[in-house]
């Protein structure tokens, strides 16, 4: 068992999503990560940031579902 360093940080406030409803905030961060990783690769620190943010915002069940849809080529968003 190793020590994990905890950084207290999360997805920042986004001016595009100022309302109580944050559904599209999660969705946008998920799409941004995939758009970014397509260009720069999964491990690029810029893209990792988006991944951290969408993980913070989206329920795990949603992310798993979208990942499955992506694998199966049935993802409803931009590929």
């Amino acid at each position, binding site marked *: 068992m190793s020590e994990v360093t*905890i950084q207290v940080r999360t997805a920042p*406030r986004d001016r595009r999503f100022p309302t109580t409803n944050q*559904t599209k905030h999660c969705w946008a961060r998920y799409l941004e990560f995939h758009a970014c990783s397509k260009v720069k690769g999964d491990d690029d620190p810029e893209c990792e940031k988006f991944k951290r943010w969408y993980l913070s915002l989206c329920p795990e069940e949603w992310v798993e579902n979208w990942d499955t849809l992506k694998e199966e080529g049935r993802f409803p968003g931009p590929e």
Partner: protein
Amino acid sequence: MNNILNFYPAVITTDVAENWQIGFQDPATPIMEGIINLHYDLMFFICVISVFVSWMLGRTLWHFEQNQNKIPSSLTHGTLIEMIWTVTPAFILLIIAVPSFSLLYAMDEIISPAITIKTLGHQWYWSYEYSDYLNEDDDSINYDSYMIPEEDLEIGQFRLLEVDNRMVIPINTHIRVIVTAADVLHSWAVPSFRSKCDAIPGRLNQTSLFIKREGVYYGQCSEICGINHGFMPIVVEATSLPNYVSWISNKLNE
């Protein structure tokens, strides 16, 4: 001396609903303090208006009843009095609107948060996800929070309010709570925080928390969600930031 002390409960808590309670629970967030203050400010106006109206009504009934006034008044309108009883209430409403609106907008304000916690309503339990932190296997923290049934309660625990796994949050930190549901509508509510956020399947609702003191806070599901709606309470444990961080790292290592 020992006997006298035994009269007092081991834990004195005011962050939980009491029998026959008619007042507020103690506030733990600046917003709840604001709501309680606004409530008392409005109560002042309500008392003044109720006394004035009752007095006018009583006086009218007393002095102008049939036997004392054989001939009814023929007065049907008067511009001055009508102006007064229109402008005065409007003015009072305007005075009340100022603190009310400033509180309303303060409640909606999302200050850049340091922590995001997702809370998911299920039939019939809450589950919490702390996904800001990942361990080496890329796993985050998530767990379910079930009510403790009556037969398993220990002395001092609250019936229908205690849960097996509490939500843990730090004090003096801006927290974003994302509320959603996995099956039907629920509502995540903690009175001491003034939090009441609908949990809607397919939608993420955001509410913010800033807890001012350590403590254990109790709430209940506030949207009728099925047969066990009354048996999915919420317990929040607010602790200091260092304690929270060590709790997170213990959880990640589990």
